[in-house]
């Protein structure tokens, strides 16, 4: 029995995917705390799709895919900014136009040159088949972002909560804005490798949303979310060994399960707590 449970760890690729998945889960979850509070969920979705052409070109030219993803993510954000600033269109429409354009371009590039990277990898991720070189890039991204968040989370929190106050105190909000977007682009590409472009957004929202239901303190969210994100990603990768399922699908289903439990049982913001409060108010 124990032998069976420990079996995944005896395979190098399994151990690697558990660690890589876990670190990507942690960093996505940390960012998700800022994304859901800033109201950037749609932008996160956009970025996770907009990095695809960059990844395709980078693979094509033999450059680190991180570089390609980063450039293409920033170009998309820039594009969104330009169209928004020069039209009366609503923000979500602009984001929709720009990110589907980038995604489509990515598809086109991949289909032109299918030998370098497959469409399935982009769409559904390939955590189990990740090369050790790519694995190191992902761990480097995750580590870098975790360090930046550890050092700068209070400024990012101030920026998300009250941008005007941040300006009044002389903080460079443009720099904080770019810092957050840059980290989102980088983690989007990391998550793309693990769960695929379609499910990246779950990694960038669900853990933060779960933590938000469980606490009223941002400091606590920064512990709960990565714990949820990291453990679910590791468990998903581990379980996929036995069930031979899509790793990305498994990870996101696990995250959703944890979210649902929080949604029902959270001490103050859960469904049952609300129900109890209504009954108390009705009876008093």
């Amino acid at each position, binding site marked *: 029995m124990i032998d069976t449970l420990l079996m995944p760890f005896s395979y190098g690729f399994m151990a690697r995917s558990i660690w890589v998945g876990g670190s990507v889960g942690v960093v996505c979850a940390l960012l998700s705390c800022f994304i859901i*509070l800033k109201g950037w969920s749609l932008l996160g979705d956009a970025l996770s799709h907009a990095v695809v052409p960059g990844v395709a070109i980078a693979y094509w030219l033999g450059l680190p895919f991180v570089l390609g993803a980063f450039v293409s993510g920033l170009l998309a954000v820039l594009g969104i900014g330009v169209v928004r*600033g020069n039209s*009366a269109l609503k923000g979500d429409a602009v984001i929709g136009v720009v990110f589907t354009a980038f995604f489509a371009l990515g598809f086109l590039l991949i289909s032109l040159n299918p030998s370098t990277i497959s469409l399935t990898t982009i769409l559904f991720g390939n955590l189990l088949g990740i090369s050790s070189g790519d694995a190191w890039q992902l761990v480097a991204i995750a580590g870098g972002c975790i360090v930046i968040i550890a*050092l700068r989370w*209070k*400024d990012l*929190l*101030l920026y998300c*909560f*009250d941008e*005007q*106050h941040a*300006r*009044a*105190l*002389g*903080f460079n909000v443009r720099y904080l804005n770019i810092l957050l977007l840059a980290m989102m682009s980088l983690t989007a590409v990391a998550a793309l490798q693990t769960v695929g472009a379609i499910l990246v957004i779950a990694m960038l929202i669900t853990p933060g949303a779960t933590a*938000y239901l469980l*606490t*009223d*303190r*941002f400091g*606590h*969210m920064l512990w709960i979310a990565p714990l949820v994100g990291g453990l679910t990603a590791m468990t998903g990768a581990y379980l996929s060994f036995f069930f031979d399922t899509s790793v990305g699908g498994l990870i996101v289903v696990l995250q959703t399960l944890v979210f649902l439990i929080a949604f029902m049982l959270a001490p103050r913001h859960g469904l049952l707590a609300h129900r109890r409060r209504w009954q108390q108010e009705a009876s008093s």
Partner: protein
Amino acid sequence: MSRHNERPSDSGPAIVVDKVSVRYASGQWALENVSLTLESSSICALLGINGSGKSTLCKAIMGFLPPASGRVAIFKHAVRHAQRRNIMAYVPQVEEIDWDFPVSVYDVVMMGRQGRMGFLRIPARADRVAVETSLARVGIADLAKRQIGALSGGQKKRVFLARALAQESRIMVLDEPFTGVDATTENAIIDILKQLRDEGMTILVVTHNLSVVPEYCDTVAMINRNLIAFGKTEHVFTPANLAQAFGGVLRQFPLDLLAQEREPVQEHLP
């Protein structure tokens, strides 16, 4: 980048708004050619109908909106410079804040200190003392641990006033601090503003509560995209100017009563 609250050696006016115009993204003018000079140790009321550009003027002064033309000077320096020296505090309208945000009253007031903290933004003893003093001053020390959404309208205003106090700035801009608050809170805020003025602070306050304006404001500015009137309260706060600023919409404040109320203002002075 220095973030200290240096006292500039030069005295002179605290805020100079010089022929400032601001344009909306749609191309319409929000403000046109507005000029004001606010001296240190004074309170100025900013009056006007909804949509007259009061908030826009506040934001132009704070440096949140770039003027299309004209300039704002804070103690003779550019706004950017004043921001870095931590001398400008802003109390926003209630609608501008996400009240579901997972932060406590204490956290928000501590954000007033963030420009003074070191690289890791770890509060020092002086920061904690400033936060506790500010909370006590506005009378919400007992609410420090509350999540900000679980507060009444008056308490919400007090939190952001406390944050501005904790900042220990020299200029404070308040956008409608009396909207939706009870009389107790209104009086408490007015008392604090008067104390701050006596301590040397320059205060600009957007308000719709006209009846108390002569009680605590040294100067009054009325705008309706353009500047209608600006000057000492006793010269500017007149039925004629109010009628011009508010047109037909001024119902809750009988203009003819105002003329009689002008005299008793003296009684408030020591």
